[in-house]
């Protein structure tokens, strides 16, 4: 049990550092006033997605980092879960925005009402925002929630 906890702690420590870095990068890029794109990463530069969004990604990273010490304790673990929830909110918003973006043609006068198939699929191609890139890694927390739940139902005291 203790060994597995420490694996989790190390995993979320790394994820926490990356998340915090992404959050800071978001904020800095927005403050600099431009967008930034590298490989599959794209950092939005507008005040809402980059600025506020960056603040929230930063918070998520801090939640991870503050939760890893004494990872087995339920209150500490809750912080890690909360970090993931913040990422889910951010990534969920970004993905929902992509979906609503991909369907209409956005033509104003004439032409088709709906997007073309390549255009539709193209919306989902990379680059992605930091939160979307972090999403798969944040899902690991579900494994730990399940493990904890099964540990509790067997009557084990995991805290």
């Amino acid at each position, binding site marked *: 049990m203790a060994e597995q906890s420490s694996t989790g702690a190390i995993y979320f420590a790394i994820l926490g550092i990356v998340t915090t870095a992404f959050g800071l990068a978001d904020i800095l890029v927005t403050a600099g006033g431009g967008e930034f794109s590298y490989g599959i990463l794209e950092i939005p530069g507008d005040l809402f997605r980059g600025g506020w969004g960056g603040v929230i990604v930063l918070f998520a990273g801090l939640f991870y980092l503050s939760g890893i010490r004494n990872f087995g304790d339920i209150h500490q673990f809750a912080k890690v879960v*909360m970090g993931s*929830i913040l990422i889910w909110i*951010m990534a*969920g*918003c970004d993905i929902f925005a992509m979906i*609503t973006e991909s369907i209409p043609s956005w033509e104003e*006068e004439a032409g088709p009402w709906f997007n073309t198939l390549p255009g539709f699929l193209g919306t989902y191609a990379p680059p992605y925002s930091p939160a979307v890139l972090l999403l798969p890694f944040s899902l690991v927390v579900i494994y730990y929630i399940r493990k904890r739940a099964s540990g509790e139902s067997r009557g084990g005291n995991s805290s």
Partner: protein
Amino acid sequence: MTLGVEERWDLIDKISKATITFGKYRHTLKDAIGELTVKPMTGIPVAIAILYGFWSVFGSFAGFFTDGFFVRLFDAYWLPWLQEIFPGQGGWLYAIMVDAGGIESGEFVLSSNCLESFGVLTSGLFVAIGIVLPAIVIFYLMLALLEDIGYMPRLAVLIDTMLHKIGLHGYAIVPTILSLGCNVPGVTATRILETKKQRFIMMTLLAIFIPCGAQIGIMQDVVPDLMGWILLYLIIGYFIFGYILNKIVPGKAPEFLIDVPPYRRPMLSNIGKKVWGRIAGFFKVAIPFVLLGCAIVGGLYQLGVIQWLGNVLAPVFVGWFGVPAETAGPLIAAFLRKDLAVAQLSVIDMTPYQMVTAVVLVSIYFPCVATFAMMLKEGWKELLGALATLVVVVFVYGGLIHLIGILLGVA
């Protein structure tokens, strides 16, 4: 026979000792997360994230329907078609129902979009269905979701400290949040406040400062860049005038403990029922009022009343508030529907700061007719008090916003 309070508690103590065993209380993950969302250090980041999510989804959804489909449907198809087939172009009925048009170099020209046309069947329908309907659908859906999960009382606890300063306990967030959907249920919900003083303060504040879902939706659509400023002015006003009212209104504002319910998995059927109920209400109440408001303002324009009012009130509008005299028209529409008023404001030519001032004025200047009726039902004395407060607030705060604009050099 009945017991005294002491005896009753004594009896309860006996009963519970005989029947209840408290096992070792193990915190579940749900409890731990619940605590995180209430403590300020961790709760404020979570609140920011939730508001962000709310706003982002709201914007995506409303943009999808309004900008993706309705704008084109109304501007490129519905408006030209009506302009073509409706008889009596240039006449008063045409102006009210379809298009008031404009005069360019001495000639009558038709409007190019549904916001500028001011007609009942064009502007009215476009505002009601094209803009406000998508906005309130997503707004109510998200609100219902947050309600049913049980996040709202936690937000209340978080905001409690701030609300105490204005003489309201955290419970006041319930009427406030309900008002964001529509002010009418917000006014009803003030009944959960304990004293007359609290009810009065709450009712007045929400009627003045809390924009309803329909209004927020249209602001998001027609003046998205200025929304932050408008909401900031409204929130600051809510707290400033709440603080002042708390000082001058006689009576008590007792403490109250909020029960924070556990988080729950929301039930889809319940959310569906709630959202549907509210949308049905929107169709019954809001749409007729939007159309009626459109007709009245259009009629008053035709009769020259609005131009006359604009001239008479020009010193107040231009001199004191720093907004163009044409805002008189939207202010009249605002009595019926604030969403319509904002839409009409958006096509008047003015600077961004004037727009901010004008939209804030529309928000605070008078409760819409449905809210007004509801307040009357809660008591005419309160209503008169609220109206008196409102007149003072509009002049003081409107002037103050103008002054801030002058000081910042943007007015």
